[in-house]
């Protein structure tokens, strides 16, 4: 009998512990995001974790296409933020998206060169000369925008007739994502590259060479909640916040455009 008393007390204590209200477990939201969003998301994370207490954002960045493949293979992402519409659309078509695709930001393409550029590139037309260009792989969203820019440039006055092929021949490396392109230019491993305006603004060691307005395009960033998310409500709330005034303000400060 005497032995049972402490045992009973222990059971009661455990029950008491179990029923004592404890602070709710923080919800961990895993956000898979395009590499060009990395700097923005560091600020978004800080702001959102204050705006939505109890939410902990885990942010993984890579090329949109690589992240899409990982999600298709079962990566436990809650939200996917892509640098284009195509990759989220593919998830949507495969039934891996929960709800609509939301366009939350825009970006434009700029030409960057290292600060102390030996190749002296003054206009995009100089890309047809003997220079080393760093580009993205074909599956990276920016490549689609850049080929549009190059296509239009080639038809402008002052551009060589073979501008497109000369540009393609000067590409010395194809990177997995835009941040890696910027890193190569910063290291002086290339003379010029087309990147997003936001990447150029974030880097302290590259110069921007203007592109004629008529040749430029707007890239659109789209997000989607993943169907297998364990916290679909929280994921939707985050995407909603990102497209709202607070999210827009952070994105605008870093050079992102409103969605067009």
């Amino acid at each position, binding site marked *: 009998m005497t032995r049972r008393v402490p045992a009973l007390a222990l059971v009661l204590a455990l029950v008491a512990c179990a029923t004592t209200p404890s602070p709710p477990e923080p919800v961990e939201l*895993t956000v898979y995001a395009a590499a060009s969003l990395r700097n923005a998301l560091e600020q978004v994370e800080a702001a959102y974790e204050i705006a939505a207490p109890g939410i902990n954002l885990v942010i*993984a960045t*890579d090329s949109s296409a690589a992240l899409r493949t990982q999600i298709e*293979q079962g*990566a436990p992402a809650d939200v996917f933020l892509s640098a284009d519409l195509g990759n989220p659309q593919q998830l949507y078509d495969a039934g891996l998206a929960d709800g609509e695709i939301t366009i939350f930001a825009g970006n434009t393409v700029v030409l960057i060169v290292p600060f102390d550029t030996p190749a002296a590139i003054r206009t995009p037309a100089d890309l047809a000369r003997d220079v080393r260009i760093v580009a993205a792989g074909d599956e990276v969203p920016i490549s689609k925008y850049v080929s549009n820019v190059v296509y239009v440039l080639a038809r402008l006055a002052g551009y060589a007739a073979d501008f497109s092929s000369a540009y393609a021949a000067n590409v010395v490396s194809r990177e997995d994502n835009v*941040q*890696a392109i910027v890193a190569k230019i*910063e290291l002086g491993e290339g003379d010029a590259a087309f990147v997003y305006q936001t990447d150029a603004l974030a*880097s302290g060691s590259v110069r921007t060479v203007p592109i004629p307005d008529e040749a430029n395009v707007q890239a659109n960033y789209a997000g989607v909640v993943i169907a297998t998310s364990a916290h679909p409500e929280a994921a939707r709330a985050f995407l909603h916040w990102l497209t709202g005034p607070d999210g827009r303000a952070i994105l605008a400060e870093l050079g992102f455009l409103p969605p067009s």
Partner: protein
Amino acid sequence: MTTRVPAGLLVVFLALPVGFLVVQAFAGRAMTDAIASPAVRDALVLSLLTTTVSLAIIVALGTPLALLLARGRFPGRALVETVVDLPIVLPPSVAGLALLLVFGSRGALGGALEVAGISIPFTTLAVVLAQVFVAAPFFVRAARAGLANVDRQLEDAARDLGAGERQVARHVTLPLAAPALTAGLVLCWSRALGEFGATIMFAGNVPGRTQTLPLVVYGEFQAGDLEASIAAAAILILAAFGVLLAVRTLNWRRALDLRAGG
């Protein structure tokens, strides 16, 4: 003289990049800044945690396998040995892809695992499986060689003196094979610590969950933060260097012991 020049050239070529990287890491504030950065700290903790678990699994399953390969006579033994050695020569990206095709949610076992409520790819468990896959052969090979070199007569002598199989293993076989087992363990750990290709394919690159130190080296470089990348790389170099030096010292001591004993 004619041998020294090419020999020296190769040594310089091998030493210069790693040496320069370590100097670069400690010259500026890269190292102190990086240790303070959550990305590097989280990755360091994750690397230590996952390699410890991987090592425990490899020792638990690898020691019996090494014993079987060192002592056993069974059909298909050459095939088993080849399969065990394969991950050493396979590109890690191939290992990662293969693991994904088996354990992925659309993989061969993925469906069954999902029914059981287990999802492996892109989790910390995937990091461990990738490490076990690529690093286990290093332990099994070394352990097999060490166990094969143990003098069976010493074991028989212990048995004649009344020792049971457990006692023989514990007091004779394992202590005699200990230097080889330790060397295998240490090499296996450094391989697991440096594992990159299979991890990024099979476990992804999520901070705090699957982003180990080698993935920080890649991720921070891709993201344009060269300093953090260099710091993480320097930690890996120093760990690997320490490990190899330790193996050498262990063998050297053993040689001394043998000489003293003989």
